[in-house]
């Protein structure tokens, strides 16, 4: 499935084995699977629910195929050495998400409470917008190092994005979590975009400061303690994430940003002490805020005893707190799926009602595709993270390394926080499963994230320009990414 498009001139260089194959044809073949699998799933839902192949099958297949094709052609043209797995993985997840959203659209129960009905066409539109942003990144971001110039603008931008939901008249309070803004008929989750912009800021900032942070430290009990003045940045980020937690009452976003920062700080300085500090600070912050914030408290209670929360919700308990049966309903959905699941369209995940097709979409997969399906999905996510980390390893510049690990680390954390929340491993948070869940901001932002990772990996894998021939030079060993 692979081919080498390297021109022979690369092999004339004295630097051996640097001319990595571009693997564009591998990507194309994988993309074909990434389009065909969701199309079969789509047909499966139609057959299970209405006994016939859905009429939209052709247009859906063509739509997804077209988007994937555009993505592929743009990558082939503008980032020929980019990682071949990321685009097919994202396409497959996005396609399966569309199928699950369409499947929940068919539910009369969800239609009757306006939680579904026409979500799939909208999601397809968001996907198109996401691919468009992906194309923009591919075409206009010729080199990711350009982003370094915008370090402090990124900081300002990220802060604005994070604060937007708190602006009166703009922010939305959806079941206690204030992470949305409303513009016209669109609601946007700025946090999803802030994730990327913050990663750019952290990467730019840490690249400059990493030596100071790493070297100027005192040794204490086997740990390198940073100087007081170097503690500043981590304290600021910590404070911001605590503020997010308090004012937007969103544990997930808060954890995500702080976690991303700690990961990048650790990679930049190679100091384990930062991890210890990070863990301590997030524990203190989370416990501290949870001690007075009722929204977080209910989430924790629902996590500890989902059955009690279900019964409180059912009995219409009037203790001033919002009780939700979602957590228990999600667990039932997973349990009812069992090992192999009920099959597409044959489960009852609509019982989750609110946010069944967004935050809780994984429960639909759990019920209808079973343990096998969820394991496969989790491994798809793991592969995306793995390709991201590999890109970071292969990147030749510290900024690229930091940005790639920041983005893929944040991605991994998000998957963990959302999937863990829905599966009852940790308290629920208001974030969405990347690519699978219904929601424009999430899809668009994650396509941009994939775009940036592809750009970094293209730069990393692109054969180095042939140096002037030097007969004295020895053969240089190059670690193939």
């Amino acid at each position, binding site marked *: 499935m692979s081919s080498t498009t390297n021109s022979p001139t690369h092999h004339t260089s004295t630097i051996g084995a640097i001319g990595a194959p571009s693997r564009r044809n591998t990507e194309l073949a994988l993309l074909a699977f990434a389009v065909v699998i969701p199309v079969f799933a789509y047909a499966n839902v139609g057959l299970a629910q209405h006994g016939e192949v859905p009429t939209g099958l052709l247009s859906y297949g063509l739509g997804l195929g077209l988007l994937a094709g555009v993505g592929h052609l743009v990558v082939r043209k503008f980032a020929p050495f980019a990682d071949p797995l990321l685009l097919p993985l994202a396409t497959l997840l996005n396609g399966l998400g569309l199928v699950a959203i369409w499947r929940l659209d068919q539910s009369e129960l969800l239609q009757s409470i306006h939680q579904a009905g026409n979500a799939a066409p909208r999601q397809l539109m968001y996907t198109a917008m996401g691919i468009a942003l992906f194309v923009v990144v591919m075409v206009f971001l010729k080199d990711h190092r350009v982003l370094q110039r915008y370090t402090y603008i990124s900081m300002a931008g990220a802060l604005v994005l994070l604060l937007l939901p708190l602006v009166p008249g703009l922010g939305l309070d959806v079941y206690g979590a204030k992470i949305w803004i409303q513009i016209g008929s669109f609601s946007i989750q700025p946090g999803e975009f802030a994730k990327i912009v913050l990663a750019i800021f952290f990467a730019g900032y840490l690249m400059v400061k990493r030596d100071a942070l790493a070297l100027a430290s005192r040794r204490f009990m086997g740990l390198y303690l940073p100087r007081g003045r170097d503690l500043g940045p981590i304290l600021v980020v910590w404070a911001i994430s605590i503020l997010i937690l308090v004012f937007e009452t969103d544990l997930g976003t808060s954890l995500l940003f702080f976690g991303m920062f700690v990961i990048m700080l650790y990679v930049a300085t190679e100091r384990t002490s930062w991890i210890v500090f990070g863990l301590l600070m997030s524990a203190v912050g989370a416990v501290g805020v949870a001690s007075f914030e009722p929204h977080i408290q209910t989430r924790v209670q629902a996590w500890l005893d989902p059955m009690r929360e279900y019964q409180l919700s059912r009995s219409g308990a009037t203790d001033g707190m919002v009780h939700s049966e979602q957590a228990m309903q999600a667990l039932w959905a997973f*349990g009812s799926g069992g090992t192999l699941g009920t099959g597409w369209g044959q489960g009852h995940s609509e019982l989750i009602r609110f946010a069944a097709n967004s935050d809780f979409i994984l429960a639909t997969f759990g019920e209808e595709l079973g343990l096998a399906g969820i394991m496969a999905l989790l491994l798809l996510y793991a592969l995306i993270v793995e390709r991201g980390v590999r890109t970071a390893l292969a990147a030749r510049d510290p900024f690229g390394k930091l940005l790639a690990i920041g983005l893929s680390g944040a991605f991994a954390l998000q*998957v963990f926080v959302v999937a863990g929340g829905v599966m009852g*491993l940790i308290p629920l948070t208001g974030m969405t499963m990347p690519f699978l869940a219904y929601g424009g901001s999430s899809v668009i932002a994650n396509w941009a994230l994939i775009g940036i990772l592809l750009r970094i990996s293209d730069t990393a894998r692109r054969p180095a320009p042939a140096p002037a021939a030097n007969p004295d030079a020895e053969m240089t060993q190059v670690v193939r990414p």
Partner: protein
Amino acid sequence: MNKPLRRIAIFCGLLVLTLLLRDNWLQYVQADTLKNDENNRRVAIERYASPRGDIIVDGKAITGHATTKGDFKYKRTYKDGAMWAPVTGYVSQAYGATQIEAINDGILTGNDDRLFFRNTLDMLTGKKREGGNVVTTLNAAAQKAAYEGLAKRGGKGAVAAIEPSTGKILALASYPSYDPSVFAGGSNADGEAWNKLQKKNDKNDPMLNRALREVYPPGSTFKVVTAAAALENGLYSSAEEKTDSPLPWTMPGTTTELPNEGNIPCEDATLREALRVSCNTVFGKIGSDLGNEKMLDQAKKFGFTEEQFVPVRSSASVFSDDMNQSQTALSSIGQFNTAATPLQMAMVTAAIANNGTLMKPYMVDELQAPSVDTIEKTDPQEMSKPLSAQNAQILQSMMETVVKDGTGANAQIPGVTVGGKTGTAQHGVDNSENPYAWFISYAKGADGSSPVAVAVVVEDEAAVRDDISGGGLAAPIAKSVMQAVLNGKR
């Protein structure tokens, strides 16, 4: 920077591994618990997803199904629901299931593990899942006679009839009753119908299964148990032996004389005579002489103090264990604390009619797969041997005298040997409330074996107090039930 990168990679791997482990715990280890949790609406959705199998009496279904709106596709319907409710119980989209509908839910919905292989085959061949059937032991004609007899009477009451040789339950009626069809769905109308039937809204408590779940003082019908105890313990060896019974008789440890109903010849009466005219003094003294322990032993052998599972649970009948002599005397004539379900008294009668062997009562004969193949068949099972065959036959002849020329004359069937015993149990503070009229009886076929034993209890608020006697109110119902069974045999 590559070393920390590799560590972060391992960290991300651990995150994913944690998720994978959690998912395995959730969808493999906990899956069945979560899947079958009663609060999980999928359980109910599944229950009503396909037409439910039927409950069958005499080869005919007494149940059916209808389609409904919403996520529950089908609901249960019943034919002659009120008559059969004490047998079937109910299954309602809103209120769950009871009795046979609950106990055999797996077979009726087709979810039972024993149908797994068939279901898997059906899934592969694309056939829709169906429920299996529950075949009962009941006799439609006997049930009809029992229910209509009670309905004609108009008061509250219950009937239980058993085939003595096998323990098959032939009739199980309770009145007033309810039609479970009216609240089988999940609509508002179903909710209203349900509320109307609740005890707080209907003082007659139509949803109480009186044949199995209500205990009544058995009154004089309990004297057959006392007589069995007297014979088994060798107090008397025949029905013709004169008992050592003074009249009046003062209960030991008290100054109270135990009264008889009217001026009847009870002084030193034979057992046969004492049972024929229903002497309280004779049987009270027998109980007092035998003592609490022996009386309790005998009652236990007939099934008292234990819940019966037929397979529907019946309440435990009561005979107390720490009574003094006078209390034992009162208990031995079916008063004081003694209380029995109609099923229990039918079991007593059946054991006597079956020459002393009590068969375990049951009402589910067979569980069938959707293809009507038998999955499980109930075999008759001996439960205990309350009295010897010889003593049983003595008791039979005594009970036959009661019907031939005693208080049970209303149960006579021309050309058929019938044995029985009347009872009139007082209750309420100072006996202020209407007594319960009891009648227990059996009929004998030509070969001397008995095809039916029946117990009837009637609480008739409309009747004049004096009119209430087992012979007057309950015996005609018992007679028509026995006739229905006998006619079916011919």
